[in-house]
């Protein structure tokens, strides 16, 4: 039940995720109904959907933080019954530990060289000089970037990102896109990204699904070349339009 129980080789690529006929209800509220989704190992999937549509719930089910009311969630072929040791989830809220300094928050899981790694990743997200601050003095966007650094430093096989860039300005956001894309390309972990920004989805993902009414209303492959610098690419614009229509 902890990371220590498994040996997770650093270089191993991502794991596949599979949800079959998953339903999730809270009391009378049905959030997901008969939901099917297969994410191959190493894929970068973006999930788009209306507010309250069940995206965060989906993430919690994959991470094993919640159990489905029906159906089955599997990672690497095995049913998820508890937290999987190599899944990392960046929550929609930053969830920084208030009594740990920024650097300690990033290296929350410690491990060898954690300070050095935390410092490097903090520099990657543009917060190299805030390592020794308390989280409480950070701005909203800075908190979000600390949470991102924490997720990236943790060497996952599956990385779940729940609106990681929502509080960032356009330029910082693009820098973070590049950072994420670079690390993902290097390490090859499976990625699920929730975003409200359709352009962001198209710019980053291999595949975009639209969540609507508790099921997938659009499942779109994005086969543009990487790195994707040119956002005004007409193919990209067309994809964006398709997605927006499906939402």
């Amino acid at each position, binding site marked *: 039940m902890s*990371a220590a129980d498994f040996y997770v080789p650093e270089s191993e690529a991502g794991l596949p995720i599979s949800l079959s006929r998953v339903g999730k209800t809270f009391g009378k509220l049905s959030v997901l109904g008969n939901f099917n989704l297969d994410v191959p190992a190493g894929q970068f999937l973006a999930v788009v959907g209306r507010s309250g549509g069940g995206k965060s719930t989906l993430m919690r089910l994959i*991470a094993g933080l919640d159990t489905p009311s029906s159906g089955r969630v599997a990672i690497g072929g095995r049913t998820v019954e508890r937290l999987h040791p190599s899944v990392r989830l960046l*929550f929609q809220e930053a*969830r920084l*530990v208030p009594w*740990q300094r920024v650097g300690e928050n990033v290296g*929350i*899981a410690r491990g060898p060289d954690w300070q050095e790694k935390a410092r490097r990743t903090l520099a990657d997200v543009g917060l190299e000089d805030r390592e020794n601050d308390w989280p*409480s003095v950070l701005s909203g966007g800075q908190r979000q970037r600390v949470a991102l650094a924490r997720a990236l430093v*943790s060497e996952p096989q599956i990385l779940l990102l729940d609106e990681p860039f929502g509080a960032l300005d356009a330029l910082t956001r693009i820098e973070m896109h590049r950072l994420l894309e670079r690390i993902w390309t290097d390490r090859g972990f499976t990625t699920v990204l929730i975003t409200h920004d359709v352009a962001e989805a198209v710019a980053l993902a291999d595949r975009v699904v639209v969540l609507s009414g508790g099921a997938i209303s659009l499942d779109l492959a994005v086969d543009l070349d990487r790195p994707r610098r040119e956002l005004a690419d007409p193919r990209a614009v067309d994809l964006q339009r398709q997605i927006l229509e499906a939402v």
Partner: protein
Amino acid sequence: MADTSVAGYAAGDTRSKPNFKRLGGALLPWALPIVLLVVWEIAARTGLVTARLMPAPTTVAAAFWKSLLNGSLIVHTLASTQRALIGLAIGGGLGFIAGVVNGLWKPAETLLDSTLQMVRNIPHLALIPLVILWFGIDETAKIFLVSIGVFFPIYINTFYGVRTIDPQLVEMASVYGLDRKALITRIILPGALPSILVGLRYALGFMWLTLIVAETISATSGIGYMTMNAREFLQTDVVLLGIIVYALLGKLADVATRAIEKRVLVWHPAYQGGQEGGR
């Protein structure tokens, strides 16, 4: 600004304060005790209260000076303090462990908490016959009583603190692969710390409270013994002296816990009053 300071949070006002204000702030908490002392002295001097029943502060001070000179005050205080600290270490340690285990592990809570809540309610005075039966009349009995006196406040507040940790942080820590030990030491205990420190405050009070009861079991030293002994012969000045020693020990405990709070809760806005210098 005014409205937020309603809850005592100093706003981020960075203007510097004059120094004499800081000094005044340090003295102000003593204002009330000093006023009380002066009123009491006057009342005793003018005969408003019978001096024999309620000796003037100066009489008590004289008793204090006398017992300081002949060393008895120090002997009594040391004897009590030793019992108090041993009891605190044992009872506090066990209470902490029980609080953590019951807070984290539901089966333990189901089995133990209810029983502990029942035992907690038994007054120490009523327990004395059993304590003598089990531990005799030596130091062990006294230390046992202090230990159970200290156990419960630490237990309750640790339990409460562990229980009310932000579940979101626990989730986060689990997702980031912290094992049980790391989860406890890095998330749960620091999060429960403010509450545990409140428990420590209680415990320090209980420590003396139980000790005075414990020192009625065949003791020949300790401030509890000194006070209860003086009480028998209505030596009100010594009784008052004992009360004042207790009050000062209480103040000491308070200062100590505040210092600990200020140190370990640097990150906590409510414990660091910004420029105001805390509380």
